[in-house]
Structure formats: C-alpha cells, structure tokens
C-alpha cells in the first residue's frame, strides 16, 4: 500500500462520483485538486458521497473497514478532506493504524 495507490483510488472514485452527479469535471484531477471548501469541486452532499464511496472502495481494495469521518478528521485545523493529497495521506494513516490494531 502506498499513498500513490490511494491517490489513484481517490481519483477513480471521484471520477465515478462526478459522472453520477453530473457536476462539472475540472480539466484534470491531480493531487492538488481542491475537493471541498473555497474553490472545491464538491458541495457538502458531494463530499458525503465521496467519503462513503471511498470507505467502500478501501474495504474492497485493502480488506480493512475504516470510518473516514472520525473525530480526529472533524477536529483537525487543516481538514484532511481539503485536497486529494491531504485525503490520501489521511487514508494512508487510518489504514496503517487499522492494520496495527488488527495485529495487536
């Protein structure tokens, strides 16, 4: 598992979501694409869908069940849901922790 792989999963999930919501897709989806907040491509309902779709994809791909909108995520000064990069780092951390808990 690498953050690059997670970024790919996020981008694919986001593409599917954008198509299903028929919202305007930015020219390119990159690590720096702003997901939510000022200049973000998703509204609050879009973010809800991205998070829940992503939880499912992560479970399929890595066989771990994670809750992305946990207390830490919601209390951080810099939201992990701001960009694809910040989200992929956050997901990476959660999966790692979940692996360690599973072994512990």
């Amino acid at each position, binding site marked *: 598992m690498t953050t690059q792989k997670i970024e790919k999963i996020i981008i694919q999930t986001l593409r599917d979501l954008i198509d299903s919501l028929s919202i305007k897709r930015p020219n390119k989806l990159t690590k720096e694409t702003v997901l939510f907040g000022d200049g973000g491509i998703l509204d609050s309902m879009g973010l809800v869908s991205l998070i829940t779709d992503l939880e499912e994809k992560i*479970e399929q791909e890595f066989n771990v*069940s994670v809750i992305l909108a946990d207390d830490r995520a919601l209390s951080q000064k810099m939201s992990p849901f701001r960009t694809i990069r910040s989200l992929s780092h956050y997901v990476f951390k959660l999966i790692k922790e979940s692996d360690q808990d599973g072994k512990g």
Partner: protein
Amino acid sequence: MGKAEVVLISGASRGIGRFLAEHFLRKGSVVYGCSRSPVDWKRDRYFHHALDVANERQVNRLFSSIRRQQGHLDITINSAAIASMNHFLLMPIATAKKIVDTNLIGTFLICRESAKLMKKARYGRIINFSSIAVPLKIEGEAVYAASKSAVETLTCIIAREVAPYGITCNAIGPAPVKTDLLRGISAEKLGRLLERLSIKKFSTFEDIANLVDFLTAPASGSITGQVIYLGGP
C-alpha cells in the same frame, strides 16, 4: 426480484427482534441478527453476530460481512434496547449511560452504516423503535423515555438526510409488549399505564409485524419521518 431481500435486525436474540427475525425468515428473506450474546438456535438464511450495538468496530465488522456476503441491504430494524425503571433520583449514572448508549448511540450507528450500504442501491427501509413511554411521560422511565425521545428526533432528521437516496426511516412506538423489558414492573402499574392508552391492551408481536410489513413494503416509499404509536397515546 432476482436477489433475496436482506434484512438486518438488532436485538434479535429475544423479544420483538426475535419474533421479527422469524417473521422475515418465513417470508423468505435473508436475515442478519445481532445481540449482545450468541443465540442457541439456528435457522436457514439466518446469520447471527454477537456484538454491542454501540461499539463502532464491532458494528463495522457486521456490515463488512453483509457487504461481502450479500452486497446489499434492504431493511434494517433497530429493536435492540435496554430499560431500567427507577425513580430518577435513584438512577445510577452507569445505568443511565448504558441506556443511552444502546438505545440512542446503537440506533444511530446501525442507521449510519445501513444507510451507507442502502445508498448504493438507492433503496432502503429503516425502522427504529420508540416507545409509548415518550408521549405518556411515564414516571420511573425518565432516562429510557428520554433515550426513545432522542430516537424519534434522530429518525425524523435521518429521514430527511437519506431521502435523496431512496431510503425511508420511520419509528414505531409500541404500547407495552410482554417482553423481558417489562420485567420488574408491577401488574398494578402496568394496568394503570394501559388505562391511559386509547386502545387499552398490550401490543402484540403480531401488531408490530403488521406495521413493520407496511412500513417496509416497496410501495411505502413515500412514508418517511413518521413515528407511529400502537394503541394510540
């Protein structure tokens, strides 16, 4: 329908939950049940998970199983509940917290994970359990009734938030039902309580199943955010 209807019932080891599990099994559904303890009975198409409904990790594991094994969930019934009748001056805080955890947090958690799974199919029916103790404001049930009151509000707001996904969320408030939850309430007190209802009798499991069938029917897609009391308050 190609795929079998998948139903999740919390509190399935006894009482209302057990009855509803058997009810849906008779109708040919695949039923996932959960309760704090394992069950000593087995049925075809029935899968039991022993868990605490307020434990996020344990609840997640249950949903991972449903997702892996069935890929979808049609109906969720949150019947897990605990009660402890006591004058509020004598209510231990640990008991009060346990009641809120199981009745409110447990219902919230199972609703949340159910809606995530149902949302994919853009279809789902969620039923929560309130109680006639809410409108009747029964003495001795302050924390229990308050937790059920919270379940009603939760139900109504969830109903709004899941409506775009084709999911409905309603609550049933039965009159007293002869289950373990009534253990310890005197016959005299129960008699006085029934007197305050419009229909002065206990609710039966069949009364509840009838309403569950109505609310979970595919044709009931426009009925959401409702709290229906059996016996009338």
